[in-house]
């Protein structure tokens, strides 16, 4: 076709302009890159370059090419019973499978045992769970210390504050993370010398660290799904999806003001698993 409609010529000019935009933006990208780069400018220039090209090509195809409607016949997918029979013949009958039942069984057994043997190394991927979900790094006699620091003293934790502590000198076990809370005088109870409580920091719902403490009503809040735990009542869940209380860490307040663990948590920390009570 050599005859050009005026509309066609206008479209041609537009397409050419769009391609020109691509060229200009591409050059711009080179310059920006050479000058040290700037993400926003790069993004906009790349948008211009790619967009010009894309719009130009679409316009060319839609406006300047024949838009003839093609109608193609559609045969049914699949050749029906004859085709299947024709396939079965070389596949099964020639090989004589129906006469070799025993061999087929044997082959199946051999393949299954080989597959099992080859699948076994999957167990190299991780240690056996064993008892590891039931224990943390806490042992009787270990002192409570902030991550990487010396053992904490009672006078370093003001009333109403929370400190994340680990066994002194060993913060290798993240699941030992414990919240040491100075609750002050317990309402409704005679003031006691030990106004400190310690609970596992790992949420019993899905294992997020329980990070927020609301001082007025002594509530610990897990930011992941908003479980709330009542600190003054054994960290029982108040609301949210958690069911088990945060396990308490047994400890003693020493004469020098430090805290010593009396043992590990009495039950597994973190999210539940099926055999935790077996």
């Amino acid at each position, binding site marked *: 076709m050599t005859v050009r409609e005026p509309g066609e010529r206008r479209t041609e000019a537009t397409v050419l302009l769009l391609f020109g935009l691509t060229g200009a933006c591409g050059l711009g990208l080179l310059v920006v*890159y050479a000058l040290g*780069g700037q*993400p*926003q400018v*790069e*993004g906009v220039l*790349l*948008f*211009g*370059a*790619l967009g010009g*090209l894309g719009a130009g*090509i*679409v*316009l*060319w*195809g839609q406006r300047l090419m024949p838009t*003839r*409607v*093609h*109608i*193609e*016949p*559609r*045969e049914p*997918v699949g050749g029906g019973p004859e085709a299947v029979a024709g396939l079965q013949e070389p596949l099964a009958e020639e090989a004589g499978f129906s006469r070799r039942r025993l061999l087929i069984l044997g082959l199946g057994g051999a393949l299954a045992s080989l597959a099992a043997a080859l699948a076994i190394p*999957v167990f190299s*991927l*991780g*240690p*056996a*769970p064993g008892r*590891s*979900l039931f224990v943390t790094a806490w042992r009787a006699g270990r002192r409570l210390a902030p*991550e990487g620091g010396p053992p904490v003293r009672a006078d370093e934790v003001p009333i109403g504050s929370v400190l994340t502590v680990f066994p002194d000198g060993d913060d290798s076990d*993240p*699941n030992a*993370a414990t919240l040491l809370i100075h609750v002050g005088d317990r309402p409704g109870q005679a003031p006691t010398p030990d106004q400190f409580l310690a609970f596992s*920091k790992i949420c*019993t*719902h*899905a*294992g*997020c*660290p329980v990070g*927020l403490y609301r001082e007025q009503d002594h509530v610990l809040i897990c*930011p*992941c*799904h*908003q479980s709330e735990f009542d600190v003054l009542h054994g960290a029982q869940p108040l609301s949210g*999806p*958690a*069911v*088990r209380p945060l396990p308490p860490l047994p400890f003693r307040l020493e004469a020098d003001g430090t805290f010593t663990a009396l043992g590990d948590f009495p039950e597994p920390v973190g*999210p*539940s*698993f*099926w*055999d935790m*009570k077996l």
Partner: protein
Amino acid sequence: MSARPGPASGALRWFDDRTGLAPVVRAGLRKVFPDHWSFLLGEIALFCFVILILTGIFLTFFYVPSAAPVSYEGPYAPMHGREVSAAYESVLRISFETKAGLLMRQIHHWTALLFVAVIVLHLSRVFFTGAFRRPRELNWLMGFTLLALAMALGFTGYSLPDDLLSGTGARIAYSAALSIPFVGPWLAFLGFGGEIPTEAFLARFYVLHIMLLPGLVIALIGAHIGLVVLQKHTQYKGGPAREDNVVGRAFWPGQAFLSTGLFFLTAAIAALLGGLFQINPIWLFGPFDAAIVSSPAQPDWYVGWRDGALRIFPPFEPTVLGSTIPAAFIPGIVIPGAVFTAVALWPFIEAALTGDREPHHLLDRIWEHPGRTATGVAILAFFSVLTLAGGNDVLAFSFGFELEFLTNAFRWLALLLPPVAWIVTWRLCRARLREGERRGPPAAGRAVRRRPDGGFEEVGE
């Protein structure tokens, strides 16, 4: 036809002499593509994947999948001297020191969000038009698997920067795996290499993210498109379209130009988003620290619904025959698993319900199959409620609601909205159907012929 030397005839000749494929390629060029914007969604998903591969390759040159501690000495001053993982440091280096690195990273992340979104739209189109019916059940299953793989790719990628948020996401996935009765602890330990957080998991997620999962996606996309070529496209009713033909434009040049242009336009949008809109600024979140979580921790949009399910499911942890059913099990595994399985098997469920096992190449209009449309809308409503519930703390904060009240409201909505949506949709479809019946038989049953002037006329049965 005379052997007129056309463009590139020498090269074509050379090609055909060695492969004999000229007629096959010719047939390919003539392949007919029905013309409707909704058929382009799948193509856009493919283009997103191509962009992900290209930007992803760039990122692999700089990323270090290692949890080894290093002291940060780069140009981002607030992080100076802090001990971070080598992975986190490498992502900071990509963001601040590699030229065009931040742009690539942000394009990659934005495109990942688009990728899943476009797949969901494409799947919805296929669902609501009944394109999954015989003979296309296999392609539905493959498309569904591709959606699952895309989400797995997004999740593994989200975990790689080893920042505060990504660690939280991995931890919740670990806890969901741990919650499965009998096999949970083994599964979680094998998958993550022990009790989380582990050093092994970054390297594993990296291999999954850049090799195993993309490999599977490439293979499945190939099979998915291959089946479309073998079975030919479905098409909407109307005009000359019938069950035994395909009406549309040829691959060459019409569709080829449209698709190529669309690829560049998709890339252009991704570039604009990646350039102008900050995403996942991990330097603000800080490095991963098992003892810290930032609030509110918002995941990528397509995992929000699972977060929502975990948030609003009531506290429930029964002990059955001595074994514990963990609180995360039902909302984190059972409900998503059940809904996803139902969606995956929908072609077979629908065939069993309707008894319709005939091949279909003409698409339904959305109201023509009220039960199906209502079910699809109900499922979308369910996921929307869960996704909103995943932001209940943000909503409570921004609109001044009590969190407790919002959580309860979402519980009721999750239970009631899907059935209500089902009934409303069903009735709307029925009303539209009845109106159509009053107006006479649908156009699909009539044969038409093209008039010389380009219009169509009916020719009777």
